[in-house]
């Protein structure tokens, strides 16, 4: 097996395809100018402009601040509530119906209510982001807490741990692999909610930026803005994966050995 040749061929294909697509775009933009088909260099220029100076302040920073706060609130609240609800199994039949209803509300439908209650403020946008992204974390935490191995809890009890100590020193670490899976989903939802809240009800941020440029037919900036959102999403996802890899290093080794390989 010529392993090296097998690695080069696909790479060549991919570079080739990418190059071809870009070339087609550029050719089309130059020969058939249309409002929605800007030349590539304008897009690149717009993209670079976004990351410098006052556009950074008025577009990128507000978006990222809202995203961070809303997302972190969702993760914290989802974890705490989920661990408690999952551990105290008796609570499950009480909260199940309400949770099942809330989680299937299309998060965007909450936006007008949030607008009513909080006005067009950052609180409103952060609320919308948090509301949309809390459920994957909450459900994952409930599931993870429920599946903690009973033996680990016995060990904790024999060592005299209180309920709080048991939750945070045993249930939380044991449920962490599942929680991280939920957090990954929550991140992509948070990103979507951030954009939605800025498209519909904001006067700064990336969503507002692309909408405003669309209305002004500054199409290169629209694409640049979209690319920026994608870049941020990608960077955050990679960062999250890196954190997960380091925090859960014990889990990968664990999973490699025992059959189902779960502590849960």
């Amino acid at each position: 097996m010529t392993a090296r040749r097998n690695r080069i061929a696909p790479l060549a294909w991919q570079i080739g395809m990418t190059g071809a697509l870009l070339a087609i775009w550029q050719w089309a933009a130059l020969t058939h100018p249309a409002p929605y088909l800007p030349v590539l260099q304008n897009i690149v220029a717009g993209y670079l402009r976004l990351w410098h100076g006052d556009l950074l302040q008025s577009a990128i920073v507000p978006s990222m601040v809202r995203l961070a706060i809303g997302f972190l609130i969702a993760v914290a609240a989802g974890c705490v509530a989920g661990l408690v609800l999952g551990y105290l199994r008796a609570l499950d039949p009480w909260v199940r119906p309400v949770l099942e209803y809330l989680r299937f509300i299309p998060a965007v439908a909450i936006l007008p209510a949030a607008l009513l209650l909080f006005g067009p403020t950052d609180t409103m946008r952060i609320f919308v982001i948090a509301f949309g992204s809390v459920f994957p974390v909450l459900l994952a935490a409930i599931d993870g807490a429920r599946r903690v191995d009973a033996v680990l809890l016995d060990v904790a009890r024999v060592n005299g741990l209180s309920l709080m100590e048991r939750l945070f020193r045993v249930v939380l670490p044991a449920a962490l692999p599942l929680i991280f899976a939920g957090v990954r989903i929550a991140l992509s939802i948070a990103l979507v909610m951030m954009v939605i809240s800025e498209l519909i009800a904001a006067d700064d941020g990336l969503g507002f930026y692309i909408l405003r440029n669309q209305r002004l037919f500054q199409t290169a900036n629209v694409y640049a803005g979209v690319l920026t959102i994608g870049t941020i999403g990608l960077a955050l996802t990679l960062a999250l994966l890196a954190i997960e890899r380091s925090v859960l290093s014990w889990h990968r080794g664990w999973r490699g050995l025992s059959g189902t390989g779960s502590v849960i």
Partner: protein
Amino acid sequence: MSESILIMDGVTKAYVPTAPILKDVSFRQEPGEFLAVVGPSGCGKTTMLRCIASLMQPDQGAVLHHGQHFDNPPPWLSIVFQDYNRSLFPWLSVRRNVAFGLRHVGKEERDARVQGALKAVNLEHAADLYPWQLSGGMQQRCALARSIVVQPKLLLLDEPFASVDAQTRIDLQDMVMDICRKMSLSTLLVTHDIDEAVFMADKVVVLSTRPARVVEEIGVDLPRPRDQLTTKETPDFLHLRHRVYTLVRQQAQKGTSA
């Protein structure tokens, strides 16, 4: 009365009312005594152990530690579970697992005690490894270290050597006896291995088949320290072994013919 470290008095436990697991189990353990509990497979030994540890309350009867009833495991009680790969915290290193019960102790004392426990079970070199990186015997030794580092007075062992190979089992038996002697522990060993029970214990409690009750208590006054080779060849050992084995087999046959 309250000098006995453990009193089981008419303990009865059933998960389903029509099929009790334990029925009227009564025996006593004195401080410093090494007690072994044997019985046919599935007779409820683990349930009994959980009641002893106060992880579970009996339906009837009482479990008394030093004459007192406890709703939760008493602080001087430690337990080594059977499934070591489920009882060690996979996200903690060996050192941190062993230190788990010492969180209210100052750092210096904690480190010293952890080191001492690791030394007693011969795991000093593996202190920073994680459970998944250890062999079965090493994992069980880690669980043992975790149990003794809190300086218990009563150590419960739930078939601790069932899942390790024969050679490791012998080494672990010697290790446990040595530790229990040095720390003057009261030890209660639940096992299905009759040789092991007679070899290690001062007294063997034989349980009947389900619903379990105490069939007989057999004193083992073989001299200590005991040796895996020489002690097991003495006529006294063989005689005791024969007695226990016969009793257990009778119970097992009763169970199958029931």
